């Protein structure tokens, strides 16, 4: 089981952005993250699409919902770490968006089901200081020429 504390492990590839939680920056960060995946992971196009879409949905939920009742929008953080064979992505904000209302019209609410379908594990944690989405993608190999790439120990 992974320790919840942050390890400074230089063999892990990492990506971290903290940006304003709005539609424009979501799109920019998504594109940057897509490029990072292509550089650091050896996964096929379908997997890349799945990962980018799942992460987009988490970012988009923060941008759309997190700060709705706040006087102004806050930030959303995207942190990804790739170690061994798993990619773990955490998207967090300091707002309030996830609620368990099961009543959804047909034209809304596909983001969360998509995150669950596209990843190997998706959790949404509602905390007093904000919301944290954690997405896990298993069986993601490292790109062969990535510095510090290690095979499974």
């Amino acid at each position, binding site marked *: 089981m992974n320790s919840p504390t942050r390890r400074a492990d230089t063999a892990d590839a990492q990506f971290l952005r903290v940006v304003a939680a709005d*539609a*424009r920056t*979501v*799109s920019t960060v*998504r594109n940057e993250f897509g490029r990072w995946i292509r550089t650091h992971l050896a996964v096929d*196009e*379908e997997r*890349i*699409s*799945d990962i*980018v*879409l799942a992460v*987009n*949905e988490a970012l*988009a939920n923060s*941008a*759309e919902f997190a700060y709705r009742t706040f006087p102004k929008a806050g930030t959303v953080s995207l942190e990804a770490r790739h170690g061994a064979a798993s990619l773990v992505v955490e998207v967090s904000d300091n707002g309030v968006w996830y609620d368990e209302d099961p009543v959804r019209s*047909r*034209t*809304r609410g*596909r*983001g969360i*089901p*998509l995150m669950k*379908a*596209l990843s190997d594990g998706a959790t949404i944690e509602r905390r007093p200081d904000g919301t944290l989405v954690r997405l896990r993608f298993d069986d993601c190999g490292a790109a062969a020429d990535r510095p510090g790439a290690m095979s499974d120990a």
Partner: protein
Amino acid sequence: MDAQQESSSTNSDVANFAIGEKWVGSVAIVSATGAIDMLTAPELAQAIRTSLDKQPTAVIVDLTDVDFLASAGMQVLVAANEDAEPDTRLVVVADGPATSRPLKITGITNFIDLYPNLDDALEKLTA
């Protein structure tokens, strides 16, 4: 003889994103390029609405050149399909992991017909 009119296209200030409308007979084709996400989905919604106002017999939403389709974009397709029914048929052209796959995963293809390319869609609609 098919009448084809190149009508309008708009570019948002997002690099690479564009929407176009053209007609083949009485079938309107709304095509998009680039990413359809929460930022750009409203433009797609508007373009489909504009086409529907011209009363085509069918609308083809062509996502052939779309490289990313977020749930915001998929919601536009679902809502537009509801607007179009029952008078106008709406179908989608999409192929590949970024577009046709999420449409299938979300079950949208259970109620909106999906074609891998424009020719197939046109053939079916004008048959």
